């Protein structure tokens, strides 16, 4: 075992399926789940003589993305043909962008724990997806489904800026949130709308040059991404430490075994013979077009995050969590608007805590949250003004979540949940409890803190839980002097 410290270097390539009505170069629908080849037109199956026509909606998506990540949007970009033979690639080439992509540069802030980091992007380019080869149920033959052929993709390539699987996952999650936030991708990883390839290498800490990388293909869940990268990193370190050099390769992750395995080496690498597609004109994007798209963009998560931190005093972690999705941020903002800025931290805790947990437990999305933000704000206001304790608040929350009662105040009144905050009344109860529990008093005075809790419990019991816990604590300590 050597003592070398290893640094992990990761870059991600992400294929995001764009949320357009039709395919990138034909009028066919891109809806998921249609019977095989029901959404494959003459253009999609590449009949002789057909030609591609660019879908401007896909370009709008690319412009939105470029604006959202602060990248450069090329005034003139080129579609190129990437030539290779495969049965689910009907033309024998994929139309993509090679030398001049539609978006270059820009970046994305991520948060790992409390640590913030900026991940630079290399480029994002438009391309068409291939179809699918179906290897089951054809009696030893292969079936071809071209429904997906021509689906618009934005391939987003990061710089090799990530230094751990956790950073890679945080980046992928931030990107996943962003593309949904700006409405260019539905983010459905199961259906393949968001797929990542991870380029992974290791190098001794302090070494400038990158190690040889291997590319893990088609990671379609964040959990698999973490597992795959962790396995791959350990594998590479072991190889090097045992004296074997890493060979550049493309590998696949097997979720069943948790292992990565090479599918092809660099020697088998294709020569794709890229050249500008003569069937398509250069893609010209004017500044007027960019301005037009800009005016349709919502406030971006990064802007919102900055505002949450600066104006509401939230931590970076809270701000990141609350801007994980547009729905989450909107819910938080609406709650805050109703509860008042002074209660920002309480709002954040309830939205990230109880609301998120209940959604998760009930298997609901934020879009289907049964509790209106104004109702949550009603609970928060009563916590803040000491009307109810935290424990009571959960009872109110449960009732409102279940659809009982018009609002927090109605439930508080109906169930008599007001805290007792009259110190005279609480003191009277304390006196009774102290008189009845001399043993505990003696134990506390002998240094047993546990005995104090027992006394608090007795006071709360005697007040049927309505006494303000903070006040009980303060007054009891005073009495016990």
């Amino acid at each position: 075992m050597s003592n070398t410290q290893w640094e992990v270097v990761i870059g991600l390539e992400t294929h995001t399926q764009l949320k357009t009505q039709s395919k990138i170069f034909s009028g066919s629908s891109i809806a998921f789940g249609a019977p095989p080849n029901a959404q494959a037109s003459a253009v999609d199956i590449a009949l002789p003589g057909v030609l591609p026509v660019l879908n401007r909606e896909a370009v709008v998506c690319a412009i939105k993305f470029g604006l959202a990540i602060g990248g450069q949007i090329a005034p003139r970009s080129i579609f190129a043909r990437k030539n290779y033979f495969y049965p689910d690639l009907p033309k024998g080439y994929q139309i993509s962008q090679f030398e001049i992509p539609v978006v270059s540069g820009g970046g994305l802030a991520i948060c790992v724990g409390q640590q913030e980091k900026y991940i630079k992007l290399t480029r994002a380019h438009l391309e068409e997806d291939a179809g699918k080869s179906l290897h089951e149920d054809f009696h030893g033959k292969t079936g071809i489904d071209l429904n997906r052929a021509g689906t618009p993709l934005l391939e987003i390539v990061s710089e090799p800026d990530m230094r751990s699987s956790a950073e890679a996952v945080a980046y992928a999650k931030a990107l996943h949130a962003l593309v949904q936030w700006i409405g260019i991708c539905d983010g459905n990883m199961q259906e393949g709308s968001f797929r990542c390839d991870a380029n992974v290498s290791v190098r001794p800490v302090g070494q400038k040059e990158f190690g040889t990388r291997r590319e893990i293909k088609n990671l379609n869940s964040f959990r698999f991404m973490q597992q795959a990268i962790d396995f791959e990193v350990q594998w590479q370190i072991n190889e090097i430490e045992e004296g074997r050099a890493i060979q550049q390769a493309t590998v696949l992750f097997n979720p069943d075994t948790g292992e990565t395995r090479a599918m092809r080496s660099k020697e088998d690498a294709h020569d794709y013979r890229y050249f500008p597609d003569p069937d398509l004109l250069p893609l010209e994007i004017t500044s007027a077009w960019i301005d037009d798209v800009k005016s349709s963009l919502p406030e971006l998560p990064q802007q919102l995050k900055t505002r949450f931190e600066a104006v509401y005093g939230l931590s970076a972690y809270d701000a990141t969590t609350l801007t994980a999705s547009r729905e989450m941020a909107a819910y938080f903002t609406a709650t805050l608007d109703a509860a008042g800025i002074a209660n920002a931290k309480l709002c954040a805790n309830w939205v990230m805590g109880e609301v998120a947990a209940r959604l998760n437990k009930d298997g609901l999305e934020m879009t289907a949250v049964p509790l209106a933000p104004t109702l949550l704000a009603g609970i928060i206001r009563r916590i803040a003004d000491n009307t109810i304790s935290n424990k009571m608040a959960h009872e109110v929350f449960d009732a409102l979540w279940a659809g009982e009662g018009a609002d927090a105040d109605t439930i508080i009144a109906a169930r008599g949940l007001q805290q007792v905050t009259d110190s005279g009344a609480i003191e009277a109860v304390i006196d009774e409890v102290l008189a009845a529990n001399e043993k505990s008093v003696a134990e506390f005075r002998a240094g047993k803190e546990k005995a104090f809790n027992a006394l608090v419990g007795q006071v709360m019991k005697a007040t049927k839980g309505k006494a303000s816990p903070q006040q009980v604590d303060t007054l009891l300590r005073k009495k016990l002097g």
Partner: protein
Amino acid sequence: MINASLTQLAQALTQKKISAVELATLFLDRIERLNPALNAFITVDREKTLAQAQRSDDARKVGAGDTAAFQSKAPLSGIPLAHKDIFCTQGWRTTCGSKMLANFISPYDAHVVERMAAAGMVTLGKLNMDEFAMGSSNETSFFGAVKNPWDQARVPGGSSGGSAAAIAARLAPAATGTDTGGSIRQPAALCGLTGLKPTYGVVSRYGMIAFASSLDQAGPMAKSAEDCALLLTAMAGFDTRDSTSLERPAEDYSRDLQQPLTGLKIGLPKEFFGDGMDADVRAAVEAALDEYRKLGATTVEVSLPNSALSVPAYYVIAPAEASSNLSRFDGVRYGYRAPEYTDLADMYSKTRAQGFGAEVKRRILIGTYVLSHGYYDAYYLQAQKIRRLIAADFSAAFEQCDVIMGPTSPSVAFAFGAKNADPVQMYLSDIYTISTNLAGLPGMSLPCGFGNNSMPVGLQIIGRWFDEAGMLKVAHQYQQVTDWHTRMPGGLA
């Protein structure tokens, strides 16, 4: 009737001297009689053709209340036309001259086919061609060579050789063609016809099986410039399905035909009048220029200094694009598939080895090579630079003249097999036509006499970008004072 112009045919139809069905039958009968020797048609379907003709006659009856209005709306209605087999034609076999598509029935119509059908024209059949339009002699067709009606021991030119032979032999009054490096103009010259390649982007390429996408352009072939003008008017127009189709107002390409040529400046590129041209061709071209001077035109020497580079640049760009365009013929979805294979790679290689002919394979190999990693800059990018230089040469020349003239082909039609041994010799047949495609300019060829062995000679006219109407006027005025375009090969009655 078989020698009539399209305008005369339209009149005969309007005046009910003949019906569309009778006219179609006349040509179908000639095809039946003469095509076995000439091999100009790959597919003839009498039933389909006559059904179309019947529809045209029916439409005319409906429009009979106002015949003049009907004719102005549909001046070509009822007139038969044949399509080069590169155009997808719904319900018809569309082979592109290849074994690869020998049994391919197109489920859709090419834009050009749609337009001609919308004009009421009746499809006579599908015309033979060099395989995937790769050839200058029509000898590369899977369906066998087409014979030149002027001398059946000679080639008709290519790749639209079937179109040229069919019109020359009066098997069709008009035909569609495509021109990637001269494939309309060279066979028109070799068969004594008038053919026009429009400015790149004027006619939609949708449904035209691609050879070299940045060079391919469809155009009309007929006996005269007047006929070509009518056909082009029907054929041209913006099409949203072709991104390289140009959005321009519709034009009547016949509008200037009657304008005199007084003051016309004809540019004669010195590079087109050098050693490469045969003496008989030169004599006919010079005589045509004299005729133009008599019509009031003046000639001026111009220079296209990079024209010597056009053939090498073309034979990089065209094969590069072709190698990619022809990748879709993989045996997976349609077309030929090898009957026996062991695995996917074997299926691909056997299918393509058996389905493509030698010239197509040669060009796929050249194209694959020039696009390969490490060669792309040296070949493809260089060729694109030359292409820009060639276009700039033309721009400069057109500052001194209105049209450019020269020979279409360096020689008259040659004998079968004469240039097969050396592909480069064959490629040089297009030396005067290729630069036009590289520059995207319109060009045409019209008959200007006869050379050795009484074979037709073609005069090439190259116009400014989008000046098809001007070019047609120049050709038409010449055809008003000469009769070369009315000559018909003997022995075919």
